[in-house]
């Protein structure tokens, strides 16, 4: 069978079931990503403030926020010397 | 403001004194940042004209980090390096450069501390005796 180059994902889609977990994971990430970016749209926030806004656990905020930093959506702002927390802002 | 440090040219050797100077860095033993090294195979291969050239170009001091008895090329190294110093001192006098601005000491491959001490004291000496 000749598989068209550049469309091989279609070929594998037919052969292989995509796990529900993978789909759910993607859905969840898209949701969280949007809510974090929306929240930061308004103002720079610390993780604490983000947690309150988004009502998801702090450590998950850390994980997703840091991933967004890693992929260039968000950047680290200033650190508050008193309580050692950074604030985060959207990358322009 | 920090006091300006003296500019010192160090002739170090690839196998013996260079490792010691590297280790000084590794151990974060600080010395003046205006110490620069030129690494050569053996300290008994330094030419007087290089030293004089350095003074001409504005170095305050020249330091030969000699192999001493560890020299991989033979025992005569210390003596030969000493002779170079002697000859150069003469030339320096002739050119009205204070001979004390050229120093040498044997720096073994682990003599980081002694190197740093040498640099600090040389630096102090040069700063104290500089004209300005």
């Amino acid at each position, binding site marked *: 069978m000749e*598989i068209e*180059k*550049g*469309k*091989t*994902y*279609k*070929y*594998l*889609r037919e052969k*292989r079931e*995509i*796990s529900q977990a*993978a*789909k759910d*994971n*993607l859905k969840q*990430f*898209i949701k969280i*990503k949007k809510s974090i970016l929306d929240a930061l749209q308004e103002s720079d926030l*610390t*993780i*604490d403030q983000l*947690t309150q806004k988004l009502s998801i656990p*702090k*450590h998950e*905020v*850390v*994980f*997703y*926020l*840091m*991933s967004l*930093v*890693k*992929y260039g959506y968000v950047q*680290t702002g200033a*650190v508050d010397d008193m*309580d*050692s*927390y*950074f604030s985060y802002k959207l990358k322009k | 403001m920090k006091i300006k440090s003296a500019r010192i040219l160090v002739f170090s050797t690839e196998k013996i004194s260079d490792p010691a100077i590297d280790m000084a860095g*590794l151990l974060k033993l600080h010395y003046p940042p205006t110490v620069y090294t030129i690494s050569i195979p053996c300290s008994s291969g330094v030419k007087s004209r290089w030293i004089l050239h350095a003074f001409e170009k504005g170095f305050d001091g020249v330091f030969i980090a000699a192999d001493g008895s560890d020299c991989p090329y033979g025992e005569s190294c210390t003596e030969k390096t000493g002779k170079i110093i002697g000859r150069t001192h003469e030339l320096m006098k002739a050119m009205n450069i204070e001979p004390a601005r050229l120093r040498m000491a044997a720096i073994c491959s682990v003599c980081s501390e002694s190197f740093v001490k040498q640099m600090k004291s040389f630096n102090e000496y040069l700063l104290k005796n500089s004209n300005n």
Partner: protein
Amino acid sequence: MPEKIINASYDALVIGGGIAGGEAALNLANNGFKVLIVEKDLSIGGKMILLSKVFPTLDCSACITTPKVSEISRHKDITIFTESEVKYIVKTGEKSFNAQVIRNPRYVITEDCTGCQLCEQACPVIVSDQYQYNLVGRKAAFIPFSIASPRVAAIDIENCTLCGACEKVCPTKCIDFSQEIQEYDLEIKTVVIATGFKLFDPLLIPRYGYGIYKNIITSMQMERQLAPTRPFNTILRPGDGKVPDRIAYVLCTGSRDVTVGNPICSQICCMYSIKQAQLLMGALPMADVTIYYINIRSFGKGFEEFYDQAKGMGVNFVKGKIGKIREKDNGDLIMRYEDINENVVKEAEHDMVVLSVGVLPNTDSASLFTDGELKLDPFSFVFQSDPLASPAKTSIEGVFVAGTATGPMDIPDSILSAGAASSEAMSYLIRK
């Protein structure tokens, strides 16, 4: 179904592409032998390539690993199979083994990938990044880490939703979802096992609360936080993103502990903890670092001096093993321990706790040999049949072992052990 079975022959098969396997392969190849490295991960370099700096010299680990790794990957006599596994090995005669190796699809044509990362940007999926020990996310189309070798993309098919975004953006059209498992049928003359070690999973000690209290991390996670290619770009508590002020180390987590089935000492934890403590003092000058220990085992060349140096820098050493840990509302942790020097039970508060997890055997290699079973020692490391005179010899003639596959050891010892294994393999190959 595999597409086809590929036949090939090599002088030596090195199982594991970490520092020991790499060193052994280099030694062999530099003396003209044809070597195949089979690495199950996406990159060679093992655990060492992921470390921050190494004790006692504080050289950056990458500075030692990456040149070695690039030398290995360039060597004309070394072939590397990443994302591959040895299924089984049969001894077929004197200096002759038959090995079945499978190579899992990477879904990327390695030769064509330029590592441009466009696929990574395009991929919408985020999952835990195993190379950052789950501190941060990565994509399903990703380059394992910036100094990986080969530095080419791979598709994590378990988490991929086959959206095709990566394939659409790839400028060299190197993403190929039609890749299948490849099977290799190999003739080889000698085998070097360099399968390395596993890290202790602290979930097995519930009283420490790892997994529940998010500000408790393993030493490997701290290693990543300190490495140049670190996940947070600074040191943060994963629980709430705070810059920690008071950091504690719990030594012997999963070592010297019969209750978790590991009675032996892991040999490296004291030193890597002291190293991390020194690095932390550098990175966070205001931080207090406390190391809770039973005995400090700084036994190697320059180690005791390194320990003294840490004490001089103000690292706090407390003799006493941590009994239990509980969390305060603000995420700080309260550690309960007996201060042995004072013979008094105490509690101390820290912002962040690092569990110095121990070394466990990687038993993958035990089942590889169908004929002439590869023996393991009482701790499930590869058994050395003549540990004093020929430390690299195993229970099977012609099969040698290198590095931490034989037991816990530090990097210099691993490299020496790899030197020994390659030396024995070489004389085995040359000997008539």
